[in-house]
């Protein structure tokens, strides 16, 4: 079991201090696939790195199977890390080494003899489905294949914990799905706890037993995945579930490419205001030439949610602030894209 107790962490830069984690506590059970979701900057990444102590907390402790890892001296910590695998969004492979050599590296660090290394790497390559690619360099592989190398490398020393840092965020949906299937498969085969962070809801929906939602350095809500999705208890979680999905991200990006100039706003509204003539009121008030460039209504867990993208070709900062204020007064959620 991984226990995170009252962990806080503040980052200091020259001009400001950012509280990345505020008294976070979390228990992750053995054999679980546990997801931490939240917007970027919510502190997910820091929390994940607290588990293998790549980040040291200012306060609080981390226990793995009762052993306090946050207090270990460096030598013991390095040894402990052999049993905590980690995979990354950008794979972080050594491009100067072949697939085989990349996977072999953690075994060399663990001082495993050459013969055992060879056997271990060969079986790992087979398990992640990269047979025949032993001598290839990362540069010759696709994104999905690179992540498979990353996974094999992370599993080399038979870890009991696998940390996944946005492991599928750089991959297309199909490849991402295949990687998630591989993770499910690994959990079936090995006694391993998987902790993953992501901003993609599809990911947690697909593979996580339980999830924690983080916002502004705090753990807002923890629960079984289906329960949190069906009945989010906290406002922040509800809002996150309503507003984030990769589809929205894609639409936003597409529209931004189409309308590089002027201002693009995304308006989100729910049942309570969907029959009010808000937009015509706003147009009369501001005299701004708005154009609606994309709109949709989608059924969600609690009623209908509408979203609309508007574009204004020419707008001053002041006009923009007024517009947003007017909309927000009518309970429309506004997001500048």
């Amino acid at each position: 079991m991984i226990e995170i107790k009252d962990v806080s962490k503040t980052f200091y830069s020259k001009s400001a201090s950012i509280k990345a984690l505020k008294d976070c506590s979390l228990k992750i059970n053995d054999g679980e696939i546990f997801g931490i979701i939240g917007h970027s900057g919510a502190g997910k990444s820091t929390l994940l790195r607290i588990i293998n102590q790549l980040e040291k907390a200012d306060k609080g402790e981390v226990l793995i199977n009762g052993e306090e890892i946050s207090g270990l001296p460096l030598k013991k910590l390095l040894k402990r890390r052999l049993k905590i695998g980690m995979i990354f969004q950008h794979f972080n492979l050594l491009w100067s080494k072949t697939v085989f050599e990349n996977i072999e590296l953690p075994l060399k660090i663990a001082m495993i003899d050459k013969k055992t290394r060879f056997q271990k790497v060969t079986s790992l390559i087979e398990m992640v489905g990269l047979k025949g690619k032993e001598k290839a360099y990362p540069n010759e592989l696709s994104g999905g294949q690179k992540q498979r190398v990353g996974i094999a490398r992370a599993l080399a020393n038979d870890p009991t914990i696998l940390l996944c840092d946005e492991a599928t965020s750089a991959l297309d949906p199909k490849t991402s799905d295949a990687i998630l299937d591989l993770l499910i498969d690994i959990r079936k085969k090995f006694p391993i706890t998987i902790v993953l962070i992501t901003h993609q809801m599809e990911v947690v929906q697909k593979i996580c037993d339980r999830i924690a939602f983080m916002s502004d350095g705090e753990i807002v809500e923890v629960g079984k995945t289906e329960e949190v999705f069906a009945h989010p208890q906290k406002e922040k979680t509800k809002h996150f579930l309503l507003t984030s999905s990769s589809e929205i991200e894609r639409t936003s990006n597409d529209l931004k490419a189409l309308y590089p100039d002027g201002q693009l706003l995304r308006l989100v509204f729910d049942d309570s205001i969907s029959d009010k003539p808000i937009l015509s009121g706003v147009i009369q008030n501001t005299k701004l030439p708005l154009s609606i460039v994309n709109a949709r209504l989608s059924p969600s867990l609690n009623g209908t949610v509408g979203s609309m993208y508007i574009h204004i070709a020419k707008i001053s900062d002041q006009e923009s602030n007024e517009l947003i204020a007017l909309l927000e007064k009518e309970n429309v959620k506004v997001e500048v894209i």
Partner: protein
Amino acid sequence: MAIFSDIDFKQIYDALIETLFMSGVSLIFAVIFGIVMGVILYLTQKDGLYENKIVHTILDWLVNILRAIPFIILLILVMPLAKMMTGSILGAKAALPSLILSSAPFYARMSMIALNEVDKGVIEAAKAMGANNLEIIFKFLLPEAKPALVSGIALMAITLVGYTAMAGAIGAGGLGDLAYTYGFTRQNYPVLYLSTALVVIIVFAIQFLGDYLVKKIDKR
């Protein structure tokens, strides 16, 4: 062949060997000292594995100062040191201290840049694997920086060939010396042109070899 009668081929051959000796030996030392200094600069910089402002600042200054002094002036400044070490201020050996002293900082800077270009994610992955700092340096950083380090060596070798020609002016020998003393001051133009051509060929050969090696080891 009236032109070739003016050329003493034994003399040219000796000069060629002297040039290769001076460039080669100083290159070896400059690479060793340079890479050590470069690694130290890299490790001690801000957010480095062994962040240490004092060490970094001192070394940084040293490197900058040595790089700021024009080679021909350094050559004169280092003469007493050369005399102390080799017993003479003339000859190829006497030129080595100044050649090394001017090129090692150059390579230090280049290796620091090469190391800084290694993906920070790779270092994070290394730490997550449980690698200690020595392992991070030797198993991750240096292999990943290898192409840049090798192309740096080629660049520096070329610079050193140029420097040896300058060292020739104060009596270090080599092709530069030959071109100047025999070719220029005695107006033996065939010797001047031939030694120049040889220097150009050496430079081309180094460049070619360097490019070839980099292409071979660069798997990006």
